[in-house]
């Protein structure tokens, strides 16, 4: 059984993440209207929001500690929030500010918070091998920390993922692979890119347990992840979790989803893991006033982060030459050295 406190804590993460994405959407569109120009506004570049994915983040990360490593793909915010990444500095990073997690160099697809061992990569499935490596480090050091690699269902046909399964299984490494199956890889429905209905089936061929969670029910994810993270932590090797989630927004901001049937979009709105979890909390005796309070607290946290981030300075142009190497070797092997 999953206790009320746990459910409430997941609920907090999820409403924070949802509200965060909704607010980022608004901030992103600032300066991009009426004509949408990707390079204009408060947040330029691509922005991939994860509304509808929250259960996969909260349900798994509930089992993680700061020492545990998480790698996320191009759609990382909900996972970052559940992993405890510093929200104001993450927001400052997304806004390209000097005090952002990465001094404005990374942006929303490349968030690094070493305090909670969170990292991401914008290249499909390429977060998997480094997660395997973090797990390898833990194993070699006899530490019981684990690593979790998140990826989309569109990423499961990429060599980096498949090779990682084998390497993790071979060394019984403490890794959990979490596939967030939102049915779409940009405009490509899952049937267009693989014949395999759920990725958990692939685990078998790598001698690894694979578990499918058919609904984005945070409690169900939590339970599946308890086993998976527990196995890893106990030295019993990796697990593949395949979690059904729903993409409530476009692939990236500006995606009009012309390719997407209305019913599919409606279904994503209807099947809301957050509402489901609110019902669970109500069953545990949490009343609507309390739920409201949780939501308000989350919203305040998000607003504070955004407000703080907006006030942060942009980096100075010459900062661009720093940080290629940590030892201060000149940025430019060719430039004005």
């Amino acid at each position, binding site marked *: 059984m999953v206790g009320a406190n746990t459910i409430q804590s997941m609920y907090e993460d999820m409403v924070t993440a949802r509200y965060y994405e909704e607010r980022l959407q608004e901030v992103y569109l600032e300066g991009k209207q009426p*004509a*949408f*120009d*990707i*390079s204009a506004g408060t947040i*330029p*570049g*691509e922005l991939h929001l994860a509304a509808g994915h929250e259960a996969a983040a909260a349900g798994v990360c509930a089992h993680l500690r700061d020492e545990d490593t998480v790698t996320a793909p191009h759609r990382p915010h909900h996972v970052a929030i559940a992993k405890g990444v510093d929200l104001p500095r993450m927001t400052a990073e997304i806004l*390209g*500010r000097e005090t*952002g997690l*990465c001094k*404005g*160099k*990374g*942006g929303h*697809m*490349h968030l690094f918070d070493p305090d909670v061992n969170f990292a991401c*990569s*914008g*290249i*499909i*499935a*390429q977060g998997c091998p480094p997660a395997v490596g973090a797990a390898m480090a833990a194993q070699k050091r006899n530490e019981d920390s684990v690593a979790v690699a998140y990826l989309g269902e*569109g*990423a499961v*046909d*990429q*060599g*980096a993922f498949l090779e990682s399964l084998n390497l993790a299984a071979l060394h019984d490494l403490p890794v959990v692979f979490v596939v967030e199956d939102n049915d779409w*890889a*940009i*405009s*490509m429905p899952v049937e*267009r*890119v*693989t014949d395999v209905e759920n990725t958990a089936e692939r685990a078998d061929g790598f001698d690894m347990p694979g578990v499918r969670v058919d609904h984005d029910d945070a409690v169900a994810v939590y339970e599946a992840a308890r086993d998976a993270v527990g196995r890893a932590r106990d030295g019993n090797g990796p697990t593949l979790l395949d979690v059904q989630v729903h993409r409530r927004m476009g692939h990236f901001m*500006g995606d009009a989803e*012309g*390719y997407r049937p209305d019913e599919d979009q409606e279904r994503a709105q209807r099947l809301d893991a957050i509402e489901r979890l609110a019902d669970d909390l109500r069953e545990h005796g949490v009343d609507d006033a309390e739920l409201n309070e949780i939501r308000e607290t989350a919203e305040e946290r998000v607003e504070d982060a955004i407000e703080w981030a907006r006030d942060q300075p*942009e*980096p*100075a*142009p*010459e*900062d*661009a*030459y720093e940080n*290629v190497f940590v030892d201060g070797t000149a*940025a*430019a*092997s*060719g*430039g*004005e050295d």
Partner: protein
Amino acid sequence: MSKPASDPGTGGADRELTMSRAMVDAVAAEMRASDDVFYMGEDVQDYGGIFDSTEGLLEEFGRDRIMDVPISETAYVGAAVGAAQAGMRPIAEIMFADFVGVCLDQVYNQMAKNTYMSGGAVNVPMVLTTAVGGTYNDAAQHSQTLYGLFAHLPGMKVVVPSTAYDAKGLMHAAIRDDDPVVYMFHKRLMGIGWMPAPEGPKTPVPEEDYTIPLGEADMKREGSDVTVVTLGLHVHRALEAAEELAGDVDVEVIDLRTLVPFDTETVVDSVEKTGRLVVVDEDYQSFGVTGEVTARVAERALGSLEAVERVALPDVPVPYSRPLENEVNPGADDIVAAIESIK
């Protein structure tokens, strides 16, 4: 067939097209002409290509010839290699050039080498299309051009159009070419609704087919004082810089258009005239295009060369934040400064 941008197309009657429309125009014409041509890529069907590279093709050619593929670049780029060796003329798209790292082996050890390794017994008539470039804050993994990487590895031709007119002619040439051609289109030039292009790339484009031979650079502006050699987006930034300096410095702007084969003659002739060379590139500076252009000139026209400057990405990954990306991606102002420093 090569025409200066100042008078592109075959006459005033030509429609003006964006670069993406011109590119698609050529693909469509080649697909009509031969069933052997087909297109594979991610989001090329219903989406029409994230950067409009296949916009409208699905309707005419259907899902067997405009194929969405799994996010398995190694598998589908390699499948294009196999299909090309079997006599078809596939076009495979890597959504961003930045992603070539997941499939480089198929690109450089198979596609580019099979012809040579077989002593010409087989050939690989395929086109590899890919979007390049920054300027919209997409950060280190989605903003590279990697021109130098592709051009360094032998066995593939490398094309970089800067205008709609060139885009069409180069695409016809690329598809008809019996060798593998990498066709690198700059996102900022495509004329995509959500990524406004500068003025230059939209040009008149003839309805009829025409090819631009691979290996011919194009003088986009004549001048007598300084030669600026560049490609892609930076052709337009160089032209902007040239306009800004007009009256003061008479700048010649050469658009390389293809990196492999390389048109050494046009570049050297120009420097022999002007004596001054500025090489401008959006790729990383070291071990890339700017070094190669400089070395070719130094080898062949050292006596004429009075000064040389390179303006390129200063060997840093592309940073996200606006002031940082602006700092490292050469602007017209940087080109002006480089020209002025040696004029």
